[in-house]
């Protein structure tokens, strides 16, 4: 078994295509897209988007103070002009007349945002910030009420945690705010793991095409042990590649992956995800013998769709239309990204833990199906 893993690993890394696909591509894409994306966030580029004007009314409480502090400290980064307005009617009419982009009320531990839909592009940034820090910990819910001209966005507090604590967390973590490269680096890690499906499929079909799979079977090894060694070696390869990518991200792009625990989580999650993905790749290989058909299914349909709906290239999914957002949750890529974000930027491991458990269950199920299929189709697949 060890020998099998060793050699298929060896074969994988000799394949120039794999290396190009799994190491160079993510680094290059991170370089190109990351740099272009980061320009959106730089203060120097704030003139690209005209600053949005916000009014706020924040109750006098400990957590209210923290929120106020946050707004006043980070409004330039968010490209906002903020000022206090205690008069509700006046504020609402300014928002309605489009003079002001939004009105934020914090009362009874609930954040309510009234925003002007005509200037919604710029107001979305604030939502994203709240959403990233508050929704991510599943503390609050976003409700959209479009009964009026105004869009009402209300963040309701979850009982499990005091919103004051959340805002405090926001303050602490804001020193490590995710920047564009950070978003991108994580998306790339997910993407790289996703691409191990291609490595798996190519590996399997190469062995079949070159007849070398026959020699595995001739030596008395079972078809299943062959499949297993292939998936393990693919995962080891992936781990090595992720390591390279992360080193690159950490030292060249200076992406902040947090402490060692975050780092290891990223690697572990990617491998679990990749194992599920390779099992899926095996299933596809067993079902579709024709490599051409497989390639089309995976490269032209499956991967782009999953990645696109998963928002792999753009974490700011609130910028995407509601219809797409509803589809997103069906893409595993979305959940990996979200989980990794929680872990790295919020120190919250709950989501990613749930994801890993689910991914493991799915991969075991897929592996079971593969065992059954390989028994059923058996050696005829090798011919």
């Amino acid at each position, binding site marked *: 078994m060890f*020998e*099998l893993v060793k*050699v298929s690993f*060896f*074969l994988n890394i*000799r*394949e120039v295509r794999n290396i190009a696909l799994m190491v160079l591509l993510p680094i290059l894409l991170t370089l190109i897209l990351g740099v272009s994306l980061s320009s959106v966030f730089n203060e120097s580029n704030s003139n690209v988007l005209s600053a949005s004007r916000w009014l706020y009314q924040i109750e006098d409480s400990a957590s209210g103070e923290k929120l106020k502090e946050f707004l006043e400290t980070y409004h330039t980064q968010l490209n906002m002009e903020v000022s206090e307005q205690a008069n509700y009617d006046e504020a609402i009419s300014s928002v309605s007349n489009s003079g002001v982009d939004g009105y934020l009320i914090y009362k009874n531990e609930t954040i309510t945002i009234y925003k002007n839909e005509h200037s919604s592009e710029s107001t979305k940034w604030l939502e994203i910030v709240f959403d990233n820090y508050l929704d991510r910990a599943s503390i609050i819910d976003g409700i959209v009420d479009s009964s009026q001209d105004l869009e009402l966005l209300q963040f309701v507090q979850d009982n499990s945690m005091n919103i004051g604590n959340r805002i405090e967390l926001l303050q602490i973590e804001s020193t490590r705010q995710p920047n564009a490269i950070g978003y991108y680096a994580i998306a790339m890690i997910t993407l790289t793991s996703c691409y191990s499906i291609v490595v798996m499929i190519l590996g399997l079909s190469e062995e079949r095409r*070159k*007849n*070398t799979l*026959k*020699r*595995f*079977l*001739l*030596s*008395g*090894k*079972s078809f299943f042990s062959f499949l297993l060694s292939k998936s393990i070696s693919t995962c080891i390869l992936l781990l090595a590649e992720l390591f390279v990518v992360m080193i690159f991200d950490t030292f060249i792009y200076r992406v902040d992956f947090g402490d060692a625990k975050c780092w290891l989580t990223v690697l572990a999650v990617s491998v679990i995800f990749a194992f599920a993905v390779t099992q899926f790749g095996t299933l596809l290989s067993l079902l579709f013998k024709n490599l051409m058909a497989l390639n089309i299914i995976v490269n032209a349909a499956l991967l782009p769709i999953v990645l696109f709906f998963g928002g792999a290239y753009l974490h700011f999914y609130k910028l995407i239309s509601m219809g797409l957002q509803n589809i997103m949750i069906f893409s595993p890529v979305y959940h990996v990204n979200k989980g990794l974000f929680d872990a790295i930027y919020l120190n919250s491991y709950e989501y990613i833990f749930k994801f890993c458990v689910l991914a493991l269950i799915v991969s075991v199920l897929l592996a079971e199906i593969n065992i059954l299929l390989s028994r059923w189709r*058996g*050696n*005829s697949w*090798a*011919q």
Partner: protein
Amino acid sequence: MTVLKVSDVKKTYDKKEVLHGVNFSVQEKEVYGLLGPNGAGKSTLLNIIVNLITEHSGDVEIFAKKISRSSLSEIGFVPQDLAIYEDLSTIQNVSFFGSLYGLKGKVLHENCEAALRMVGLWDQRKRKPSAFSGGMKRRLNIACSIVHSPKLIILDEPTVGIDPQSRNYILESIKALNQAGATIIYTSHYMEEVEAICSKVAIIDDGKIVENGLISVIKEKYQKNNCYECILETQAKIEGVFPKELIADISSSDNKYLITFKTDYINIKDVMALVTDKNSIVSIGKYRPNLEDIFLDITGKALRDGDS
């Protein structure tokens, strides 16, 4: 000792039966030939023997045990199509396939050397097969299958489409392997090869074994009493030696004649009695058919179309 016993093996592909109940057995240290034209079912039969095809009826026994995954390590199978990694060097290929059988360290290295020397590729061990000629790749294909020193070596057309030099090398290697104690099953549609290295042969046509046994016995069986081979002096003419009315057919090359008489003559003396000019005859004897003739005789068709 019976190394291989195949009983009533049938195989159906898409409702079409390609093997119709094959029976034969191979004894220890034999070189057993399986001779048959393209599409006869040779590869199918061998794939069943080595358990690559599992859906079939009938039984295969190796060393008196029903074939199973655990008995496969006793067999070295050389598949008809190349099964090597072009990206790995020659020695890495052989060593990897050896390691599949659990060989390691010094034993593995020694076995690799022996296998590569056997096929004459030891000096090329560092090179990658992608730079090899067709014949060298085939030799490597053989080396990969014998690295675990199997007791039974099965070769599926190892010489197809290669240069005569490589072919001779392969045939010599097979002989050497046999002398070292291995039992060999050798498949080909080149009857010269089978005649050169095999002691026993099974002739297979259209999914059936039409004849099998010792080559010499088969040849004797298909000898015909009205068919004689005769070599004449260079100037002599066959019409001057045998009365024309007794002869049904003559074919000749140079001064060698193959004569088919209208009646049988069991004894050479009876033929000599017919001869009118004894001095012109250099030699005469009953014609010993080759396997090609025998195949034609049994099936009414040629073993190979053209000289492919």
